């Protein structure tokens, strides 16, 4: 059932077996896994069912490192979390993302990808996407269609699947009907009390913006509040004046990383009418349904290993010849679209580029050719190296509830740029070698990042996973080192960020954690 925490009598003590903090992709996935189990679960969500600015303002914080996204807009603090505005891009992390790498410090997870595969398969169902099969050939992309630079050995075409699931609206009804599951909206987790020695959480204090305080005493607690808030809650919890929970080795908040997004440059194709039949997006009808997917360019693991490179997703946008405007105008004229004013403008465009339109029409009829491509714009999302100096920590300012706000000190290492340059040089060389065209790289020299460079909203690493408490905040089961009954879910546990979108991995890890917790509770 779903309740409003603002109507809970002050001083109430809830005593479920499991308390989950945060109703985003991880929290909702975890809660759903307990439906039908004998365990009572409380799911606390700071926001309501819809966006609310006062609640969103609880995300306010400071950025003191590299310019970082506005903390109140890159996340959403209401039921469903950031899936309320996500793009739905789903794919598992690559096997190499889980591996230790000789030349990439701090790289690797405590387990391999095959270990996570069973939960990835289940995550596909949670995200309501197609089968757990990401081979382009199984998505209607024939190897013959893939131009030489992108068919190995250094680059390859890959696909990702597109989910349309917003976890809040899609799963609310299921949670509402579950009798032993209590969702509290407008309920802000405020402080984990873990006694004098921080060995186990005794209770969690909860506050509402309307001024009501209550307490949750559970057997197990799971922090699923998001990539930054997970670290914030750990830092602000524990005994008064301490370093926070799970922070004996000053690791909470460190290794904060995101994906680095920027324009990689422009490819001038050798032939403006090159075919790109391996297309960048589409719907594939197969596997018993219609599934949207997007193709992109990636680096095969062998290439990354051989050249000591991190991961990168490369996508592209078409920049068509200006004749495209005239052709589109002609289509509208022929289809009788648009009001009178638009008609005249369209006609004028067609007449103004009659030669181009005639050339296009002739080529279309004779050779089935499309509109000539002037350039391909290259978009990159690359892996950030785990870096202990890149961190989030508590500031002195407090939010409306009295909790200290977060300070983001996002930092890169020189290798983040030099390796991005190396990948783009490799891309330029492959494009030239294959006679595909020439690359104008926006990162050709060791200068500045391109002007559109930014760190995206995939916030990872601030409570990283490692078997060794001196190297990680949580262990391989996502339990906070040194705290018997506190677990963390979400991308903050990722020790390595890869380049792929993180949500499917967040969901897979949540499913895995749920299975583990059921065993612990039993």
């Amino acid at each position, binding site marked *: 059932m779903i309740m409003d925490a603002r109507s809970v009598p002050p001083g109430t003590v809830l005593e479920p077996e499991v308390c989950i903090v945060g109703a985003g992709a991880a929290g909702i996935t975890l809660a759903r896994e307990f439906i039908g189990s004998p365990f009572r679960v409380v799911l606390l969500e700071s926001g309501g069912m819809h966006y609310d600015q006062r609640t969103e303002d609880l995300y306010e914080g400071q950025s003191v490192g590299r310019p970082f996204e506005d903390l109140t807009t890159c996340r959403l603090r209401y039921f469903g979390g950031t899936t309320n505005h996500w793009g739905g891009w789903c794919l598992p992390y690559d096997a190499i993302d889980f591996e230790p790498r000789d030349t990439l410090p701090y790289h690797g997870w405590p387990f391999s990808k095959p270990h996570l595969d069973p939960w990835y398969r289940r995550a596909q169902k949670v995200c309501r996407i197609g089968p757990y099969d990401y081979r382009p050939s199984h998505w209607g992309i024939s190897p013959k269609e893939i131009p030489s630079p992108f068919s190995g050995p250094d680059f390859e075409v890959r696909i990702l699947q597109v989910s349309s699931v917003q976890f809040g609206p899609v799963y609310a009804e299921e949670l509402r009907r579950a009798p032993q599951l209590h969702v509290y909206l407008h309920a802000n987790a405020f402080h984990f009390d873990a006694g004098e020695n921080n060995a186990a959480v005794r209770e969690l204090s909860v506050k509402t913006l309307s001024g009501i305080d209550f307490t949750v005493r559970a057997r197990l607690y799971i922090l699923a509040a998001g990539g930054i808030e997970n670290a914030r809650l750990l830092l602000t919890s524990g005994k008064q004046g301490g370093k926070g929970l799970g922070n004996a080795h000053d690791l909470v908040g460190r290794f904060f990383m995101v994906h680095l997004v920027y324009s990689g440059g422009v490819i001038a194709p050798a032939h403006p009418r090159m075919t790109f039949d391996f297309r960048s997006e589409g719907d594939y009808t197969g596997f018993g349904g219609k599934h949207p997917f997007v193709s992109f360019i990636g680096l095969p693991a062998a290439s990354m290993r051989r050249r000591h490179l991190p991961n990168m997703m490369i996508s592209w946008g078409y920049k068509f010849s200006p004749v495209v405007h005239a052709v589109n105008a002609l289509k509208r004229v022929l289809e009788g679209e648009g009001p009178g004013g638009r008609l005249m403008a369209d006609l004028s465009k067609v007449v103004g580029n009659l030669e181009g339109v005639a050339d296009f029409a002739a080529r279309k009829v004779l050779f089935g050719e499309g509109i000539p491509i002037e350039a391909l714009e290259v978009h990159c999302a690359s892996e950030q190296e785990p870096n202990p100096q890149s961190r989030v920590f508590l500031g002195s300012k407090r939010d409306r509830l009295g909790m200290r706000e977060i300070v983001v000190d996002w930092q890169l290492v020189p290798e983040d740029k030099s390796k991005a340059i190396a990948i783009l040089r490799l891309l330029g060389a492959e494009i030239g070698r294959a006679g595909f065209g*020439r690359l104008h790289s926006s990162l050709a020299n060791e200068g500045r990042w391109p002007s559109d460079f930014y760190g995206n909203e995939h916030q990872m690493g601030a409570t990283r996973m490692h078997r060794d408490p001196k190297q990680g905040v949580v262990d391989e089961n996502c339990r906070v080192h040194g705290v018997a009954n506190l677990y963390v879910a979400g991308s903050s546990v990722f020790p390595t960020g890869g380049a792929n979108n993180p949500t499917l991995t967040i969901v897979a890890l949540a499913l895995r954690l749920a299975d583990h917790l059921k065993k612990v509770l039993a």
Partner: protein
Amino acid sequence: MFRATFGRRRLMANVIGGGMAWLRRHDSFLARLSDHVRWMSGYGALAAVCGDLGNGYAIGRACLEALPTRDVSKGSLARFILGDVRSAGGGWSSKDALARSIREVSRDDFRNGRIVIVDGWMLSLTETRVYALAALLREQGATGG
């Protein structure tokens, strides 16, 4: 008269004999001479290829700036280009044949990391030299400078 004639013959024999001996000691000269003759024919085809890059002057200027100063005379650029074409087994019997060969050599350049960054564009060393030569030819005239 006879003495004089004999003297000239002996002189010529000595010169030729001495020249042959010098050439035997410096046989690479012959190879270079024949290369030069061949390159002269390649140079014509190369000038024609460069002539086709009519609107590439701006690129050519940028290429000139990107190359080491010592490499940017017409002669050295032509020698580099034709030398690489020859090493790759390419030919220059015609403008088209040379253009094809340059394309092949350029692909090899990319394969072997012989890449020059020109205003952000990643070009092969050979095509950079061709563009640079085209710019020099335009500035100095195909036969002068």
